[in-house]
């Protein structure tokens, strides 16, 4: 721990000879803060994310189309006219309603499925590992693959109508809303399952024993003992699911193709069509900014809820560690989710 000891070591070559003594008064690991290591990643993120974001905001105030695209900075500046048009003269409000309602609906359906799945694999049984792997299959399949095969299944003469003996046009008209909701539920419930698993792991054995001593029924145990443990992870799961469902472009795009039936005209696809089908770039950028505002609401809740600092110096209490488990798991699982969207 002392200077003499470290000087007797031969392998301290990395330390400069004139290392100032005063530096040692700071905490050891704080002695040298290599902030330059942030530079490569930080600068790149700045260039590839922040710059396009600012450009996007500027484009939203331009009357930009395919003719002015190459000299976009000389396109006519129209201020907030694009936003006005988006709200009054485009299907934006309709799309916001579709996106938000779909997202809330799908999240509400996935929560019970995910919780049931997590509870079903909590206790050991032969083949549990296999079941857990199978549970994640809908989640790891690429969204464009899922969209492709559901599109085939939902054809008018497809297997869904054949098996159920129905005659529904799933890919056109009003039924398409339910088709999209169903497929989104199919692919996204394992995310709730993953977070619920983390919550279940926090239930102490003592609690199980106390419940067994009191002779509670399985349902009472779930309702009054296990579910309260899931409240934290589940609220996180709900927020993140809503966020990612709103942003989902791939599934509606692949499932229905362009043009979308009006009943599933979700925000991301509407923005896409405005850009690359109608070539109204300014209008499209304005729509994208509106969708960012919608997304910002759950995002804000999420950022407030998540604990960024684990505070390991203070020695986390057991309760804190549990909370950490939830927060640490969530973004990781969210990554998987994000990687799909």
């Amino acid at each position, binding site marked *: 721990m002392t200077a003499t000891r470290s000087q007797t070591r031969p392998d301290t070559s990395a330390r400069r000879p004139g290392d100032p003594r005063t530096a040692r008064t700071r905490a050891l690991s704080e002695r040298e*803060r*290599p*902030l330059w290591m942030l530079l490569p990643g930080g600068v790149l993120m700045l260039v590839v994310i922040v710059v396009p*974001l600012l450009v996007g905001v500027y484009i939203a105030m331009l009357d930009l189309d395919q003719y002015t695209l190459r000299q976009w900075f000389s396109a006519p500046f129209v201020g907030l006219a694009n936003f006005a048009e988006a709200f009054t003269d485009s299907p934006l409000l309709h799309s916001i309603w579709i996106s938000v309602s779909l997202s809330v609906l799908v999240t509400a359906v996935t929560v019970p499925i995910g919780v049931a799945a997590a*509870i079903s694999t909590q206790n050991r049984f032969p083949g549990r590992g296999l079941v857990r792997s199978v549970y994640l299959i809908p989640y790891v399949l690429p969204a464009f693959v899922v969209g492709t095969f559901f599109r085939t*299944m939902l054809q008018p003469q497809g297997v869904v109508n054949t098996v159920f003996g129905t005659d529904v046009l799933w890919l056109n008209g009003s039924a398409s809303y339910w088709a999209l909701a169903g497929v989104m539920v*199919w692919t996204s419930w394992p995310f709730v399952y993953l977070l619920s698993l983390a919550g279940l792991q926090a239930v102490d054995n003592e609690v199980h*024993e106390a419940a067994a001593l009191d002779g509670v029924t399985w349902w009472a145990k779930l309702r009054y003992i296990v579910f309260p443990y899931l409240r934290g992870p589940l609220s996180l799961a709900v927020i993140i699911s809503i966020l990612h469902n709103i942003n989902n472009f*791939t599934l509606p795009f*692949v499932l229905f193709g362009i043009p979308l039936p009006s009943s599933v005209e979700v925000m991301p696809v509407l923005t896409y069509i405005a850009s690359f089908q109608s070539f109204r770039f300014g209008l499209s950028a304005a729509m994208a900014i509106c969708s960012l505002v919608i997304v910002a609401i759950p995002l804000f809740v999420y950022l407030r809820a998540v604990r960024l600092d684990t505070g390991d110096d203070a020695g986390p209490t057991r309760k804190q560690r549990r909370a950490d488990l939830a927060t640490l798991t969530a973004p990781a699982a969210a990554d998987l989710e994000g990687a799909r969207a």
Partner: protein
Amino acid sequence: MSAHGTPFAGSTRTRPTATLTESITAPGRRPGRRPYDTDVTRLLPRWLLVVVIAVIIAFIAAPVLYILFGSVNSDVAVARGEYFPSEFTLANYVAIWDTVALGQGLVNSILTAGAVAVASAALAVSTAYVLVRFRFLGRLTILRGLLALQSIPGTLLLLPVFVVFANIASATGVQVIGTRWGLFVTYLTFALPFSTWVMVTYLRGLPKELEEAARIDGASSGRILRSVVLPLSWPGIVVSAIFAFLLGWNDVLFSTIMTTPNTRTVAVVLQVLGTAQEGGAVPIYGQMMAASIVCAVPVVALYLVFQRYLVGGLTAGSVK
């Protein structure tokens, strides 16, 4: 679960994995009336457990088996809505390579997504290391920013990136749109925050003591990162690389706009296959199913190989 040696735990347990403590304490009690149900941690009665698992697995398996069956069925039979193939054929797997440029798509996807994986994982390690181990002004803002960036709608960035690239081309004559490089840079916008966050969560779980020991021995931060942190964080690096890879592999939004027929990723090739058949008279659903499976196989293989890291490693490992 093996920690409980309480007398009422597992006394009549029938599963063969009962621990020593359990078998010692077991003789104290006579078997109860519910022979399967005395594990205190059990959450569901056995019958309900079987029902739940069976229902969920059926829910998953019905569509998954459908693509497997569809891919070995004839195009016409799939179009008729047949679930089980009346005759097995592997012709679809042979035909898809000629119907569309699936091979080229696979190569493009692997090159682009692979480069994104390597680059973002490499950059993420050092960024995450500084964010986790050192305290400085703006640190929490950066962490918050990493999370927020993951939720930015792709459609918000698509257009500006497209416009910037188009202008680079007209200003310098270097064509960016349609190249793999353009796609690579675009995917980095999403992969970098992901990978960095994954590394942050991973590095948090590593004990600080090893780094402190190295520091006492006089190692610089660069040296510590290289010789202590890096060797310990391979699982995290692998996971963040995989996430970055999947991001590129699964993307449809950017690749439909920013690729030419030569640089199309496999996701776009599958879309082309899907739309190609709608104009034509002959349905090629069987081939679509086969191509879907070809697109899914690399992802599922990655998942199976690294499953422990991807699911268990990140959740369990991060709390020690």
